[in-house]
């Protein structure tokens, strides 16, 4: 039984692509068969974050237009044998694909994969509609900033209107030092405002930039963000991993720094 997950946010630049790459890679590292689909037509990025930009021959639009078979457009990951990427087209625009075509393609992919992860473009227009059309559940990415949270709320409303059964929240780029000083909303504040279940908190970590520079997802490695993404992957599969004490974030960071698997 496969699951189709859309990673979305509304606002651009909050970490959808990074999240998609890391969650996909993490799930594949657990032995799951995973395909990552970049649905941002015209502005593809998932390929560079994954370090697979040199291997692209066919893309999503070619598949939809029947210029190639699905298998020809799938790029095998360098690191994990069960991970594939379907890149987006760089020369077309969002109107090259419609929601019905996406659903048809996803239904074909369901036979071969455990997880189909869709990296959604920013915005709420055609690209968003394409990305959510075939999805079963959503991961909404936000940062603890007013603009990102506002857009996330709008996206959640649209997902609910489209009858999504499961919508989970990822809070990205949280800075515990700022939360401690009272200059950033805590994870609990954000959850309180958006009122959807929290599935992960990713601390602001320079290693994310380094990993992107290298085209290597950092999930599972010994960095703060790497551990956070690993925990998100476990939770996506239904495993219960306790959160670091995010609700007491005002004073906890100094006390429990480094304890991610706290029971």
């Amino acid at each position, binding site marked *: 039984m496969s699951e189709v997950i859309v990673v979305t946010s509304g606002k651009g630049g909050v970490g959808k692509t990074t999240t998609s790459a890391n969650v996909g890679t993490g799930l594949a590292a657990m032995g799951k068969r995973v395909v990552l689909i970049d649905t941002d037509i015209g502005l593809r990025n998932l390929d560079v974050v994954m370090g697979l930009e040199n291997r692209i021959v066919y893309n999503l639009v070619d598949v939809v237009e029947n210029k190639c078979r699905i298998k020809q457009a799938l790029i095998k990951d360098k690191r994990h044998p069960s991970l594939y990427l379907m890149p987006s087209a760089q020369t077309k625009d969002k109107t090259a694909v419609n929601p019905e075509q996406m659903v048809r393609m996803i239904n074909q992919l369901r036979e071969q994969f455990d997880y189909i992860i869709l990296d959604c473009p920013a915005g709420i227009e055609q690209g968003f509609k394409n990305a959510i059309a075939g999805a079963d559940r959503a991961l909404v990415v936000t940062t603890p900033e007013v603009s990102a949270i506002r857009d996330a709320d709008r996206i959640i409303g649209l997902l609910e209107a489209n009858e999504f059964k499961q919508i989970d929240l990822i809070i990205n780029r949280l800075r515990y030092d700022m939360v401690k000083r009272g*200059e950033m909303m805590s994870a609990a504040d954000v959850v309180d405002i958006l009122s959807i279940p929290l599935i992960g908190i990713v601390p602001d970590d320079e290693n994310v930039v380094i990993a992107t520079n290298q085209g290597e997802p950092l999930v599972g490695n010994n960095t703060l963000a790497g551990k956070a993404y690993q925990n998100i992957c476990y939770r996506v599969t239904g495993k219960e991993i306790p959160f670091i004490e995010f609700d007491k974030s005002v004073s906890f960071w100094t006390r429990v720094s480094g304890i991610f698997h706290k029971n």
Partner: protein
Amino acid sequence: MGIKHFFSRKKSRDIAKDRLKILLISDRVNCSPEMMEMIKTDIAKVISKYMKIDTQSMEIQISKTGIKGHDSKMPTLYANIPILDLHNK
């Protein structure tokens, strides 16, 4: 920045929270903060006919989380109105 100023300053976290709460209410119901303010004033006017209320600290908000027993997606208007004197003034 003087030490007094430092202690009296409202933290930006709280400012962000307050701004978002108001903003999201109007986003969700598709009505402007001005309109919410008008609803608030009108409610205050009606209640004031019958009892003395604290109009300064009263709050109204529209929340997505419904009341028990109802459809959870039904938006609800909450009014928090402190009563100063229950008897008619």
